[in-house]
Structure formats: structure tokens, C-alpha cells
């Protein structure tokens, strides 16, 4: 009779399992001990125009998008042709972009001009490879808000390209049907308007606020609205009365069915595009998406921007800065890349061309007064009611800001689903965020 290996030869004993776990933990520990590149003093960008132009690369998530790529490629072609250089394209999808860019920059695989969301400047600057573009910004009429958004730790790491904000966008058709004539100015009026919208029935979500953990960072702006600074001199304030009150209110909206479960930005856009949500949070870049997706061909004319309601009349409405900047990574072609960054962000013809293609707000005073830009009613309204009071997220200064937002979002999620009480959850969130800050 044949003898086969006994089954017990492959059994995993407790001792063996512990050895393996120990081995895994040891490896992870070693990996964690690999030294990080500390922030280094950035090199000041030279005046590239003075030197010979060289080939360089341009990284952007927009190069993967059908609505943006053709316009950007045309501009890259123009610059390459005018300066007799080659511009190599580097692109990753938006959701993977910062992690991939970080890896590639750290590994020395990407140098030159890089399109960045202003929220990422702190993380990238920590790699110590971004140039100080302050000298290049001089003499250009960038808006103060734009310059400020592209600054980190007092250094102009990026030149502002399209700077705006994230705020409330509403559908005037649904508002009219609900009898809402004017934008609510306070949180109480806002809630009352949501109740009126809910009476419309038909499955309409009054406010497609973010309720999925991945996007619950949106609640931070409501915490600020309720008076929490989020961060005060390096101390995370989440867990204070204001943040608890904000989350309690958010939960009450959820319980009343005024906001819907499992919504992120994509879902909110879809609901809004289908006329099933009356209000949602977005940057102006979302306009294209909702209009294209909508069966309502007149949706573009029905959009209106609302200042975020305040807690008490007279308070300043809160909004979160959103936008793109162009930074320059040290390395091959960096000097020409810096020149390109200035051209791309400040040339008026470029701004006109790009605005026509995408409708995104430019970041120079001279571009903002261009007839096409100024005549964009929704864009102007958005700038006046939302962008005007926008501020950056105080956590952006930390390279680990995404983790901070995640630990907070997890606790807010716990409150929404009823598995935690607002105060306990926010205290827990604050403590976890503080650990990441320290």
C-alpha cells in the first residue's frame, strides 16, 4: 500500500505560528525603521528664461481625463513647440496620484513640473525635493488667495493654477418647487429648508452630504461652522463642545432623513445630476460632471452656489479651499519646468484657452477679468459666495493629514450609524488625531 505524506506534516502548530508572526512583525519593524527623507531647504527656482531650455516632464492626474487631457496636451504642445523642447507626460488617476507621485519623487523617477492639489503640498514638501517658486511668483498678478493656497510653511512651493473652493451647490428647480425663495443664512434656516425639500417626496434627498467614511472629512467644515478651530497651536480641538455639537447636528440630519446614508462625492454628483438631490458639496470642477451626467439638458442653468450657513447671523461663512497648483521637483529639466509652470499659470492666453475648455477659475487677476471668465454667471457667483471666504484645512500642514482625516471620519461614521455617542466619539477622534500630529 502506498504511503502518502501524513496530513500532520503540513499542520501549523501554535509555536510555528508565533514564530511566523514574530518574523512578520520583525520585518515590519525593520521597514518602519527605514529613515524618511526629512524636509530640506528648497532651492530657489532660477530664471529659466536666461538659460537654454531643456526637456522636462509634466505630471498631472488631469492627463488621464477625457474632459481635461486634450486641452492640457494642446498647451503642452504649444510650449514644447515654442521652446523646442519635449515635454514628457506622467499621469496617474486622481485617487492614486499623490501616493504614486510621492513614491516616484522619492525614488527619483519623477522630476520637473507636477500638478498638485493644494491639499498635498505639505506631504510633497516633506520629501525635500520641491523648489521654492517664490522668485518666479514675483511680478505676476496672482491672487492673494491663490498664492496663499500654494504656500506651505511660508515657502511658495507651487504656483497657483486653478484656485477655488468647495461649497454648497443647489438646484434652483427643486428649491422653487419646495418654496425656498432665498438661500438660508443660518444653520437653523438651512435645516428648515431641508425639511421643506424633504416634503417634495419622490425619493429626493434634500442634502447629499457625505456620509461614507471615505469622504466624511467634509464634516470638518461644519465643525468649523459650529466654532471648532480643529487645530489650535498644535493641539487638536476635536472633542470640544463645538465639534460635538456639529456632529450631533449632522447625526440629527441623518436621523431625520435629510441626508442619506452611504453617499460620497461621486454618489452626490450622480444624485444631483439625476435631480434626486437638491443640495450637495462640491468644487466648481464638479459642474462638468453633473451637467454631462444629467438627463436634464438645462441643469447648467439651474445651478446656484450658496454660502455655507453660519451658526449665528453675522458670522463669516466657512468654505474649504480647493484648487490645483504647479510645483517643480528638483532634477532633470527643473529649470525649464519652472518656466513652464509660470507660463501655464500666468499667461493670459493660456488662461483663456484653458477656461474655455474646462471652466475652472484661473488664479491671476488679469485672467479673472477676461470677458469669458467674468461672464460665467455661476462661476462668478461661486467665487463671490464661496471662494471669497475659503480657508485651508489646518491639518494639511501635516504630511499625514490623510490619516488624520481618516481617524476622524471613522468616528463620525460611528456616530451616524449609532454605534457611538457624539462626545465620546469626538474625544476619541481628537485623541487619535493628536497622536498623528505629535
Amino acid at each position: 500500500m502506498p504511503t502518502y505524506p501524513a496530513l500532520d506534516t503540513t499542520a501549523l502548530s501554535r509555536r510555528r505560528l508565533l514564530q511566523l508572526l514574530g518574523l512578520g512583525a520583525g520585518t515590519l519593524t525593520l521597514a518602519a525603521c527605514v529613515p524618511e527623507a526629512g524636509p530640506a531647504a528648497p532651492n530657489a527656482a532660477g530664471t529659466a528664461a536666461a538659460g537654454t531650455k531643456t526637456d522636462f516632464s509634466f505630471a498631472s492626474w488631469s492627463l488621464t481625463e477625457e474632459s481635461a487631457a486634450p486641452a492640457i496636451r494642446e498647451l503642452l504642445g504649444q510650449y514644447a513647440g515654442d521652446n523646442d523642447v519635449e515635454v514628457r507626460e506622467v499621469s496617474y488617476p486622481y485617487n492614486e496620484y499623490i501616493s504614486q507621485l510621492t513614491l516616484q519623487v522619492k525614488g527619483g523617477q519623477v522630476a520637473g513640473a507636477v500638478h498638485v492639489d493644494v491639499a498635498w503640498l505639505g506631504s510633497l514638501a516633506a520629501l525635500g525635493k520641491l523648489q521654492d517658486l517664490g522668485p518666479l511668483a514675483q511680478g505676476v498678478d496672482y491672487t492673494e488667495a491663490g498664492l496663499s493656497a500654494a504656500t506651505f510653511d511660508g515657502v511658495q512651493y507651487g504656483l497657483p493654477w486653478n484656485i477655488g473652493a468647495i461649497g454648497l451647490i443647489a438646484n434652483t428647480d427643486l428649491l422653487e418647487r419646495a418654496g425656498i425663495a432665498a438661500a438660508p443664512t443660518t444653520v437653523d434656516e438651512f435645516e428648515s429648508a431641508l425639511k421643506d425639500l424633504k416634503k417634495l417626496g419622490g425619493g429626493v434627498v434634500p442634502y447629499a452630504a457625505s456620509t461614507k467614511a471615505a469622504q466624511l472629512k467634509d464634516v470638518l467644515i461644519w465643525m468649523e461652522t459650529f466654532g471648532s478651530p480643529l487645530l489650535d497651536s498644535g493641539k487638536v480641538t476635536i472633542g470640544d463642545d463645538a465639534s460635538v455639537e456639529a456632529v450631533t447636528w449632522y447625526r440629527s440630519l441623518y436621523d431625520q432623513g435629510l441626508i442619506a446614508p452611504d453617499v460620497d462625492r461621486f454618489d452626490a454628483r450622480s444624485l444631483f445630476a439625476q435631480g434626486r438631490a437638491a443640495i450637495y458639496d462640491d468644487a466648481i470642477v464638479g459642474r462638468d460632471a453633473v451637467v454631462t451626467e444629467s438627463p436634464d439638458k438645462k441643469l447648467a442653468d439651474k445651478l446656484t452656489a450658496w454660502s455655507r450657513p453660519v451658526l449665528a447671523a453675522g458670522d463669516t461663512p466657512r468654505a474649504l479651499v480647493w484648487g490645483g497648483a504647479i510645483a517643480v521637483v528638483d532634477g532633470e529639466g527643473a529649470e525649464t519646468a519652472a518656466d513652464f509652470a509660470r507660463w501655464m499659470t500666468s499667461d493670459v492666453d493660456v488662461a483663456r484657452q484653458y477656461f474655455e475648455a474646462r471652466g475652472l477659475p484661473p488664479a491671476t487677476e488679469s485672467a479673472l477679468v477676461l470677458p469669458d471668465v467674468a461672464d460665467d454667471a455661476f462661476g462668478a457667483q461661486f467665487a463671490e459666495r464661496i471662494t471669497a471666504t475659503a480657508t485651508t484645512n489646518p491639518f494639511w500642514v501635516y504630511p499625514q493629514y490623510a490619516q488624520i482625516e481618516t481617524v476622524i471620519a471613522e468616528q463620525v461614521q460611528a456616530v451616524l450609524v449609532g454605534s457611538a455617542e457624539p462626545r465620546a466619539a469626538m474625544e476619541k477622534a481628537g485623541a487619535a488625531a493628536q497622536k498623528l500630529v505629535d
Partner: protein
Amino acid sequence: MSALTPTRTPVPRTPAEPGAEAPARRPLRRDLLRSERPGVRIAAWSTVVVFGGFALLPVYWLLATALTPRDQVFAYPPRLFPATPTLDAFAALAGNEQLFVYLRNSLLVSVLTAVLSVLVSAYMGYSFSKFRYRGRRSLMYFVLASQMFPQALLLVTLYSLFSAYGLLNTYTALVLSFTTFTLPLCVWMLKGFFDTIPDELIEAARVDGASRLRIIHSIVLPLSAPGLIAAGLFAFVRGWNDFIFALTLAGPEKQTLPPGLVNTFVGEAATAWPELMAASLAVSLPVAIAFIALQKYLVGGLTAGAVKG
């Protein structure tokens, strides 16, 4: 017959003796679906329909979305059948040459991954199954333990390694990286398969004077074809589906389908759902065809060694 001639012991399917009793058990499928009791039959068919629907609904939804105009994808209430079906999404695919580049890259690296994984794991599996040496079991567990490392950790390590050796943005980097995570399971899968090959067969071959390599190549591997195919298919699919390693290590020219499709159709503000679904459907076909063609080997290969004989 020489021991060098691969053979299998035939499995009797019907009673050999005339007049013997009918088989006590028929296949479960026939028992239930053709039961004489209507209640059992209805319940069996209902179960088949429910589970079949559960399995096929995502595929149907993929197809329906691919045939739906973009502005109707999220129409409310959702429609089971597209109101105005269109082939626009498929037409857009046909005109997108870059997708064929991604397809070619995916086929190439997945096939190479499968071949490399089977080649290496066959020898490793054979060693673990048929040889007894010091540290064998520790080595086996070490191979398995490598499955426990988080992918992100492996990715960063491989990125640094490939960067140091100038292998980034090459097919080699993709194939090697995919093989790192296909190898452990392939090795264990094949070890299980080799365990079912009687040692007497190998001993007989040795008595006939066959060398160890001859035994492996002329006896063990031919007998293990189902196992090798199952392991190869597993490695192929793993390479075919990988997103993050390909995105990070392949560079723009060697990029495979998963990151290629995301790059092409998923944007910051909007996603081209019909085109994405049409592309997903089209690129699933090679894998589906491979599974259908090889399913008899796959089932045999995966279950080999599951029951001790």
C-alpha cells in the same frame, strides 16, 4: 509497461459484474433536479435559479450599463433593461488604440507570470512533497508566511529593488513582482498534487534507472498536468487582475489593463461608466474563455490532495 510511461488507474464507472446491483448513489445534481418529488424538484430548481442569478447578475449589469447612454446610467428608478440601448461605448473601445496596447501588455505579463510561477513552483512543490531534508517544513512555512506581508510593504520594497537595478518600467519588473505573490499558493497547491502521486511509481522509475530529472520531467509533471494547469491559471488570473503593482512598476508604456482602464475612464470629477463597463466586459472574455476551456483541469487541480486515498 515501463514505469516511465505515465498512466493513471482507471476509475470504474459502472458495476463490472453483470447482474450487479445498480449504483447506490447517482450524482447529486441529478438526484435533486430530477427528483420524483415535486417539492424537492421545485426547491432544487429555485436554488439553482437564485444562485445562478446571484452569480450572473453582476455580469448582466455590466452589459446593461455598457449599452446605456451615459446620461441614463444613474437614472432613477434604475432600469433592468436600458431604455435606449446604444453600442456607442463599444464603438469607442474599438477606436481606442491604447486599450489594445494595455491588452497586449496584460496578455504578455500574465502568460509569462503563469509560466514562471508554474516552472518555479513545480520544482519547489516537488521538493517539498517528495524529499525529506532538514529545514524543509520551516522553508514551507516561510514560503507561506510571505503571503502575510502587506502588499504595500512588498510594493515599496520591490520598487526600491527594481529602481536600484534599473528594472522599473519593464515587463521583467511586472512578471517578477506578480510571481512574488503567486508563488506561495502555487507551491502549496502543487505540493498537494504531488502528494497524491504514489511514491512507488517514482521508486519503480528509479529501479528502471531513471535519473531524478528524468523522473520529474517524464513521470511526475505529465501526471500532474491538471495541477500545473490549475496553478498556471491561478497565476494568470492574479497577474491579469493586479492593479497597484502594475500602476506603480510598469510606467506608461508597459501598463496593463486594470490601471490602463482606470487611467482612461475614471476621472477626478466623473467616470465614463458605459465605456468602463464595455471595456471590462471585453477584457474579461479571454479569462472567461480560458476558464471554460480548462475548467475540468482546474477543478481536478484545486481539489487534488484534498482527500487522502
